[in-house]
C-alpha cells in the first residue's frame, strides 16, 4: 500500500463489505463524518487532523487507489457510491455528514442522490463530474499538476509525501469508475432529488474545476450554500487549512445556520 509514512493519529482498519474488503482510516470522537478523497488519492492534511479533534472522521480508500486491489464489482460512479453507502451502514450504522473532494465530491453526490438515508449534511470541495465542454480537467505533467493543485504547496505536510507517479496511478484508477467523462449528465438529472443541505467550496484560484461547476450545482441542488475560499486552488485543505476548517467545522456544527455570525461573547460563554 503506497501511502504517507505518518497518518496524523489515524488508525488503519479494514471494512468487510458486500462487494469485498475496503481499507479505511479513522480517528477522533464525536459525531461521525466520512471524507471521500480525490482522484489523486488520500492526502494527509491539517484539516483532517483538526476535524478529528471534533468529529470521528472516517477516510475510506476506494478499491484500486493507493495500491489497494481493484474490485471487479465496482466499475461505475453509482457502484462506488453504493460501496460507500454499505461502508457507512456497516461501520457507522447510521447516516452521517459526508465531505467529498473533487472525485470524492462526485461520489458523494451519487451517494446523496441514490442513498439519501446515508447522508445528512453534504460538503463538496471543488467536485468533479460537472465540467461542461470538458473545461478544466487534470494536469498530467508535474508543473501543470502543481499549478492546478496548489497556490501554497509549501503548506504540504511531511506526511503528504505522495509522488507524482503515485498520483498518476490513482488518476488512472479513477478512470475505471467514470470512464473519463467530464459532465455526468445522469447525475445532473438527479441533483434536484438530493435532500441533504449542501455546502459547496470552491477556491478562487481553482483551474481544474471550472466555475460552471458551481453554477450547475447551485442551480440544481435544492439547498446549496456556496463559499469561495480565497487564494486556494484545488487542494484547498493544503492551501488554506484554517479557512477550510473554519467554514467546514462551523457548517457541520450548525448546518444552514452557519450563515449567521456567532459573537465572540457567545462562544466564550
Amino acid at each position, binding site marked *: 500500500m503506497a501511502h504517507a509514512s505518518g497518518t496524523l493519529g489515524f488508525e488503519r482498519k479494514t471494512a468487510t463489505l458486500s462487494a469485498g474488503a475496503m481499507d479505511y482510516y479513522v480517528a477522533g470522537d464525536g459525531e461521525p463524518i466520512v471524507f471521500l478523497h480525490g482522484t489523486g488519492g488520500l492526502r494527509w492534511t491539517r484539516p483532517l487532523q483538526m476535524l478529528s479533534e471534533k468529529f470521528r472522521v472516517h477516510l475510506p480508500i476506494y478499491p484500486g487507489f493507493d495500491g489497494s486491489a481493484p474490485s471487479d464489482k465496482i466499475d461505475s460512479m453509482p457502484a462506488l457510491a453504493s460501496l460507500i453507502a454499505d461502508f457507512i451502514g456497516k461501520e457507522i450504522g447510521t447516516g452521517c455528514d459526508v465531505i467529498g473532494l473533487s472525485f470524492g465530491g462526485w461520489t458523494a453526490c451519487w451517494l446523496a442522490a441514490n442513498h439519501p438515508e446515508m447522508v445528512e449534511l453534504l460538503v463538496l470541495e471543488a467536485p468533479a463530474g460537472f465540467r461542461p465542454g470538458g473545461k478544466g480537467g487534470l494536469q498530467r505533467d508535474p508543473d501543470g499538476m502543481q499549478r492546478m493543485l496548489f497556490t501554497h504547496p509549501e503548506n504540504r505536510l511531511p506526511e503528504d509525501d505522495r509522488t507524482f507517479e503515485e498520483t498518476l496511478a490513482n488518476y488512472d484508477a479513477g478512470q475505471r469508475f467514470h470512464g473519463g467523462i467530464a459532465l455526468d449528465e445522469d447525475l445532473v438529472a438527479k441533483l434536484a432529488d438530493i435532500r441533504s443541505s449542501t455546502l459547496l467550496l470552491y477556491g*478562487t484560484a481553482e483551474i481544474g474545476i471550472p466555475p460552471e461547476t458551481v453554477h450547475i450545482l447551485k442551480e440544481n441542488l435544492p439547498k446549496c450554500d456556496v463559499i469561495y475560499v*480565497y487564494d486556494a486552488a484545488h487542494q484547498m485543505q493544503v492551501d488554506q487549512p484554517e479557512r477550510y476548517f473554519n467554514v467546514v467545522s462551523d457548517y457541520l456544527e450548525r448546518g444552514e445556520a452557519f450563515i449567521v455570525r456567532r459573537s465572540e461573547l457567545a462562544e466564550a460563554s
Partner: protein
Amino acid sequence: MRFNLFHLMPWDSFPERDDVWPVNNSDFEPKKGHELYQTYIDTLIYGEECGWDAIGCNEHHFSPYGLMNNCNLIGSILAHRTERVKITMFGNLVPLLNPIRVAEEYAMLDVISGGRLMTGFMRGIPHEYIAYNLPPDESRARLNEATQLIKKAWTEPAPFGWEGEHYQFRAVSIWPRPYQQPHPPIMMSGSNENSARYAARNGAMLGMVFIPNLEKGRQIIEAYIDEARKCGWEPGPQHILCGFHTCIAETDEKAQEALGSAVKYFTKTLLGVQRNAQQIVLQKTKYYRSQSNSDFFLHRLAHARERTIEDAVHDGTILCGKPETVVKQIKRIASELGCGWINTNIKIGNLPNDMVTRGMELFRDYVAPEVRDLQKSPETAPPDLGPVREPEPELAQKIAVAGE
C-alpha cells in the same frame, strides 16, 4: 482625446500654520462648508455642459485637502443631475472599506446613472490608513482580496459566501447588480511601475492622477502595456488616464500667476499638514513593497513645494496658459504619453471659483475643439481577466527592482 473633470473639493481658506495631521477641525465652518459643497457640485455638473467626457470624484479623510470623504455620496448627486458624462471614481479606497458595501454602492451608482460609472479601486495615499485604523502593511493584500470579492459580488449569478484572509461573508447577493455587464470598467492607480503592472494584471484602466514628469509617466505606461501583453491583452489609449493641474485663462501670464498662488496654497498649506503623517507611514511600515518606491514618494513629498510653475510647464506636468498654449501642451502630452484620457484638476487649492468657471468655458470654446480628435480610440473596457494570482513576494520584488 477624452477629458475627465477632477475636483478635490478643497477647503480654500485654511490658515497657514505649522500643523499636523489629522487636522484640528475647529477651523471648519459649517455654513461655509455648505456653500462650498453647493459651488463644487455645481462646478462638476457644469463640466457636462462644457464638453467634458467624465466628471470625477475622489476620497480623502481628515483634512482640508479634500472634503469628499465618501466619493459615492457626491457621485450619486452627479449621476442624478447629469445625462451624458461618465461618473469616474478616484476612490473608493477599497482596502479601508467593507468591500460588499463598495460593490453595492458602485452597483447603485451604475444603475442610477444608466451605465455611466467608471469605478475606482484605489489603495489611497499612505496616511489614509491612520484614519480608519488599518495597518498600511496590509493595504496591498486587502486590495487584492477585496478586488476579487467585489468582482464576484457583481458577477456571480447566485448567492455565495467568501472565506478570505481579511474578509469573511457567508451569504452575499447584492441588489441591485451593476447596469454594465459583466461589470463597470475598473480603474486602478498607477503611481509607479509596480502599481501599473498590478492594474494591468487586473484588467483595469491605468489612472495616474498626477505624474511627476513625462519621462516617469512614460515609464509607468510602458510597464502597464508590457504587463498587459504578458496577460494576453492589448491596452489602447482609452485605457490610460493621465492627470494634470489645469488652469486656463485669457493670457499665459494670468493663468500662471493664478495657478502659482493656488499651487503654493495647495502644496504648502493643504499638503503640508499631512506630510508628517505620510512620512511616518512610509518610514514605519511596508506600505510600498519596494524601498525605491517609498523613497520616491518621500522625495516627491519633500520637494513638491520647491517646483515653480515654470518648472512644471517645462516638464509638461501641468496644463496652464491661454487656450492656444494649453492646446499645445495637450498635444505634447498626447504625443509623448499616448494616453487617451486627460484628467484635468481644475480646482487647485484656493484658485478662485470664478476663474475655474471661466477656464472651463475657455476649454469648451477653444481647447476641446482642437484636441478632441487626438488619440481617437474606441470606447472599450479592458477585458475581464478573472481571478488574479499575484506573483510571490520574491518575484514581485524582482519585478520592482527590474522595473525601476
